[in-house]
């Protein structure tokens, strides 16, 4: 396939076309992914999540500007929500990413969430694979940012940065445990606003409480994404976290777990689809439905019967 040859040669247009192909689940996309996933891959993946307007895009911009200076090739995937009513989307993250014009080192792709609710789009992980195979050293993923915890990011990244702002107090109260679960590094952005110091020390207490004195702690970092203040510290924290997880084996463990989850969920999706399809074809449900109406059976027995019909003898649960 000519497109793949161009891709291998480092052609950005081919990269872009392949991403579209995969994002739209066009015919043959799995074959392309299968091939691409065997190319050499080495990218470290950083997730940036946080409430709407926290400054995620602005921070990505200043982080990338800094990292691109070191000669690294960087891919950015920025996800914004699709409208549930029209399916359309207004993808505005690029507005804040104006310093990223160095086309040979930085490639940015905006994605609409297309009905997915976990903070990423359904195809985001595949797009990350494609960027990785293209030769990126770093991939940064900005989640939708809808003001709730976006869990998908931990399945797609090595280091997750949660961005909060001085006004995020209420959110932290309600989601404390969940936030701790996903954050490897906390960043308090908009430190030019009142209340930032208090939030930083509150977060640090929280981190200390949770981790105790035996594991390595990553204290919350304060930033002003507009002026660039503190961005050095954030980028240091990210590389220290990388060294830490690579050193203690967590990196490999995480990747293994992610891969397992990804493969299993892909198998599960197909089983569910097939099953729905078979049940439709067999007319199984019609007959059960009439038995339900006449009171000959109940929903629980009916579920058991359907399960046994398709899976008896094949599965442990049967």
């Amino acid at each position: 396939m000519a497109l793949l040859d161009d891709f291998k040669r480092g052609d950005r247009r081919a990269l872009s076309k392949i991403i579209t192909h995969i994002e739209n689940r066009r015919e043959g996309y799995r074959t392309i992914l299968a091939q691409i996933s065997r190319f050499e891959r080495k990218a470290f993946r950083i997730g940036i999540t946080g409430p709407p307007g926290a400054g995620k895009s602005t921070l990505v911009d200043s982080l990338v500007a800094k990292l691109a200076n070191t000669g690294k090739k960087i891919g950015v995937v920025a996800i914004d929500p699709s409208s549930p009513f029209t399916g359309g989307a207004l993808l505005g993250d690029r507005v804040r990413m104006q310093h990223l014009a160095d086309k040979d080192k930085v490639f940015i792709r905006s994605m609409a969430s297309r009905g997915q609710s976990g903070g990423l789009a359904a195809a985001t992980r595949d797009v990350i694979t494609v960027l990785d195979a293209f030769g990126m050293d770093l991939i940064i993923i900005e989640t939708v940012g809808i003001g709730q915890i976006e869990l998908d990011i931990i399945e797609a990244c090595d280091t997750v940065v949660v961005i909060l702002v001085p006004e995020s107090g209420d959110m932290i109260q309600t989601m404390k445990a969940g936030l701790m679960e996903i954050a490897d590094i906390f960043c308090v952005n908009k430190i030019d606003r009142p209340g930032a110091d208090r939030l930083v020390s509150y977060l640090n207490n929280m981190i200390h409480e949770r981790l105790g004195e035996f594991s390595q702690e990553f204290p919350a970092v304060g930033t002003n994404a507009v002026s660039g203040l503190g961005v050095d510290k954030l980028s240091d924290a990210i590389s220290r976290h990388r060294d830490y997880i690579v050193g203690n084996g967590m990196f490999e463990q995480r990747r293994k777990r992610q891969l397992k989850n990804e493969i299993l969920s892909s198998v599960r999706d197909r089983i569910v689809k097939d099953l729905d399809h078979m049940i439709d074809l067999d007319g199984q449900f019609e007959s059960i439905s009439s038995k339900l109406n006449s009171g000959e059976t109940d929903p629980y027995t009916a579920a058991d019967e359907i399960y046994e019909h398709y899976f008896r003898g094949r599965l442990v649960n049967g």
Partner: protein
Amino acid sequence: MSDKIRVLLAKAGLDGHDRGIKVIAAAMRDAGFEVIYTGLRQTPEMIAEAALQEDVDAIGVSILSGAHMTLFPLIYKAMEARKCTDIILFGGGIMTEEEMVILHSQGTDKLFGPGTPTPDIIAYVKDVVARKRKSEKII
């Protein structure tokens, strides 16, 4: 299901008003498009590069600063340099019919004068993208 229509919207030139283009962006979203809005003061290089990375079907550029006669051809050149002139380039600004004809001959597919109703622009994009996709399928 057919692929979503992806459109890049940008403002080029030095004028700092983005109300109009934001209204169009929102209307296009409501029409089911995926709109990548890139903001104010975009250079021709930035516009063409963003269009390439986002793999859009069409680029819409608004230029109200009076520099349209230089900027549109430069955008087209930047697209040529990236071998992506198959992307539809349309735009709006304050210009004469004659200027539109010249710009059209220099690569801009369609120009809209001031006050064009947004639904007309949306209908244009839908139509031209559908035709483009059809012809690509035949090849």
